[in-house]
């Protein structure tokens, strides 16, 4: 199990309004072992054909951190990981900006890929975040609907 009680966490979860820096997150993970591979996923705000002015990300403080931490722990149990970092932003995010980052480090590449992919799949459906669209015409658009394929994506880990 990764160490969670010290300053040097092999699992790092952040819910923040600010942007993140992938390079420094990878460097952070390098302290935890003899890393052979790092897989990352960055989720960005799409512009949806130019109509969108921003997404507004609402979250459930406390539960969001706890859920993502639990997902990261599951990933550690399932795959041979050295460290994992997950950062999710909230607030207004413009097209082209970052929304979410997952970075997984391992001795071997497949575990790194699987760790990042697994955390993303479960974060999508289990972490309490909601997206609302703000449109360029100034109107507040719809809440984004959950997708069946996001639920289905979790099946590959059974």
């Amino acid at each position: 199990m990764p160490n969670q009680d010290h300053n040097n966490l092999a699992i790092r979860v952040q819910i923040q309004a600010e942007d993140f820096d992938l390079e420094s997150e990878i460097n952070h993970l390098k302290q935890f072992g003899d890393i052979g591979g790092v897989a990352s996923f960055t989720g960005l705000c799409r512009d949806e054909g130019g109509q969108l002015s921003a997404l507004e990300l609402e979250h459930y403080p406390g539960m969001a951190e706890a859920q993502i931490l639990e997902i990261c722990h599951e990933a550690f149990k399932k795959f041979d990981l050295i460290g994992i970092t997950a950062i999710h932003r909230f607030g207004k995010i413009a097209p082209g900006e970052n929304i979410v980052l997952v970075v997984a480090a391992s001795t071997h590449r497949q575990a790194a890929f699987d760790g990042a992919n697994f955390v993303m799949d479960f974060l999508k459906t289990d972490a309490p975040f909601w997206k609302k669209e703000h449109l360029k015409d100034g109107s507040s658009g719809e809440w984004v609907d959950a997708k069946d394929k996001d639920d289905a994506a979790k099946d590959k880990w059974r």
Partner: protein
Amino acid sequence: MIKLVYFAWVRERIGKSQEEMNLPENVVTIADLIAYLRTLDDGYEAAFQEPQVIRAALDKTHSLHDAIIGDAKEIAFFPPMTGG
């Protein structure tokens, strides 16, 4: 007294993000609470008109509608999540 918190369009339809409430004695499960809330006014009714799409959490842990509320301090209601 229990704290109720609402997110996304559940929050918008009810018109507040949180409130404290004394639950009636016959409210035992989350489903009971949803049924009770729907009787309060049109906002709750609009929020919970399709209860099967509503997700709930007891003390920040995902919970099914048949879960017993027991001595939970906080119950959250929200639509399916769309983060990531």
